[in-house]
């Protein structure tokens, strides 16, 4: 369907990759850790390796959660846009196939949030 309008109604998307000055949006959610109220929105360089993403971006983001100390992100089960995903930790995000505005989810089996409440 389309917009009923009094004239032509077409606009460029506001969040095109070109508007982010060489960086990309990447979203990441941690399953069963809803203490973080929503998935994170990160701004990342596509040349960064997946290992660097984990160390420099993801670990600081989740550090406030007591489960983070026990979370081995390299052993996590990963999903990219809801499909199973096996990251190559030494390859860049680009080489891992992560595109602008993609969504990652990580599941750390055995870790079920604060007192098992999935928080």
């Amino acid at each position: 369907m389309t917009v009923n309008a009094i004239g032509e109604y077409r606009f460029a998307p506001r969040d095109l990759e070109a508007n982010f000055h060489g960086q990309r949006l990447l979203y990441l959610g941690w399953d069963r850790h809803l203490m973080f109220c929503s998935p994170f929105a990160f701004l990342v360089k596509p040349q960064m390796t997946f290992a660097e993403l984990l160390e420099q971006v993801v670990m600081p983001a989740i550090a406030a959660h007591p489960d983070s100390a026990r979370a081995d992100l390299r052993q996590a089960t990963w999903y990219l846009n809801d499909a199973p995903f096996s990251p190559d930790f030494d390859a860049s995000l680009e080489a891992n196939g992560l595109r602008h505005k993609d969504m990652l989810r990580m599941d750390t089996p055995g870790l079920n949030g604060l007192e098992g409440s999935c928080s």
Partner: protein
Amino acid sequence: MTDNKKKLGLKDKYRYLTRDLDWEPSYQKKEDIFPHERFEGIKITDWDKWEDPFRLTMDAYWKYQAEKEKKLYAILDAFAQNNGQQSISDARYVNALKLFLTGISPCEYQAFQGFARVGRHFGGAGARVACQMQAIDELRHVQTQVHAMSHYNKHFNGLHDFTHMHDRVWFLSVPKSFFDDARSAGPFEFLTAISFSFEYVLTNLLFVPFMSGAAYNGDMATVTFGFSAQSDEARHMTLGLEVIKFMLEQHEDNVPIIQGWIDKWFWRGNRLLCLVGMMMDYMLPNKVMSWAEAWEVYFEQAGGALFKDLERYGIRPPKYVEQCMEAKQHVSHQAWATFYQYSQATNFHTWMPSEEEMDWLSAKYPNTFDQYYRARFTFWREQQEKGQRFYNNTLPQLCQVCQIPAIFTEPGDPTKLSHRSHVHEGERYHFCSDGCRDIFKNQPEKYVQAWLPVHQIYQGNCGGADVESVVRDYYNIELGVDNFEYLGSPDHQRWQLWKGEKPLAPLKQAS
């Protein structure tokens, strides 16, 4: 006018001052005079079938409203002279007013603009006059709200720049985008969105909680505003119902269009109201009722009867309404948890409920609070006591349509965040729900333009590169004064001084 009676009867006066103001154009076509009346696909065959819901003429309107204003301002004066700000239940309450002033009052102004516009675009004089009066009501509401709350601005922080904040602050893009969406729609969709879905179906869930909340918490200024606006609101609800019935009765082709709008605007309104839910359950020191109870009384019961009544036109209850039955047990907790962790970027304070308040929450939410939220809030309170008050130092993923962070849980599974995505013309978009994704899919061109605060910060369009400078310079939120935790805040300290207590030292604000 043929008779020479000095004084007109009400009925005549009414006719002369509404329908009689209209005329049949002779040198312009009606379609050219009202160019926006047809593009939405709504078919109007006879504007004379419009039943004026207000039965009010402009002269009576002025007189009536002026009397109400006089009373209102007399009470506001008395409130100020008696230092009414010291008689409220607790200074935490004022944070509900900060949310109202930045989140709701500017929407009243948006409603004024919207009604003023659509009142120009209807071929029927009755509808034009009704919209004109509602436009003036809305303008009066924003003014009286600002005046009622201006007294608090002298004694509490965060109320100093509400229009600026409404246009810029991340969470205020939620109400702002709601009205932007309605106002940029055609005139019939605007009325379905605001008059029907919002004013008729959902307004009691906004108005009653805030006004009862004010009454329960000793805020006579806001209560008086509420009384002053109440008769207007009743009129607006009547207009909402008239609008929808009129359109439905005009042509059967209107039914599916209107159903689509009801689905859309119910869902958008329901999302917007989670702000009210958290206000009721968490921000009122003296609670009125729980959000779930309010939803049951004002939506499930009242709305249930309404949609039964509309069945004969072929209208069914809004899509996804059943998801709200479950969500009413969750959304207030989810919203408060969000504001608590992003309090560094809000113009009001947040705090963790006391043990006693948590017991109230578990009594009101026996199936959800203890199981899903208590551990989270207890942990945060313990962290705070250790001097490690939790703030989330990342930015959240926002829904492309409602612009709320994707905080809601999956229907049927409160342990999992609800997330939907959709690829449109090669771009990926993210949503909090099926309801929001449906809205996008129906009109993708509208929502690809969404001004999402998080993405705007990352694009460098909100000043500095770090959150602190965005909050300070772009939002005009004074750091350490307007934002962060309530305990130990300047508001809290001032309140303690008024009450003869020793002010609590500010908490360390780092997470």
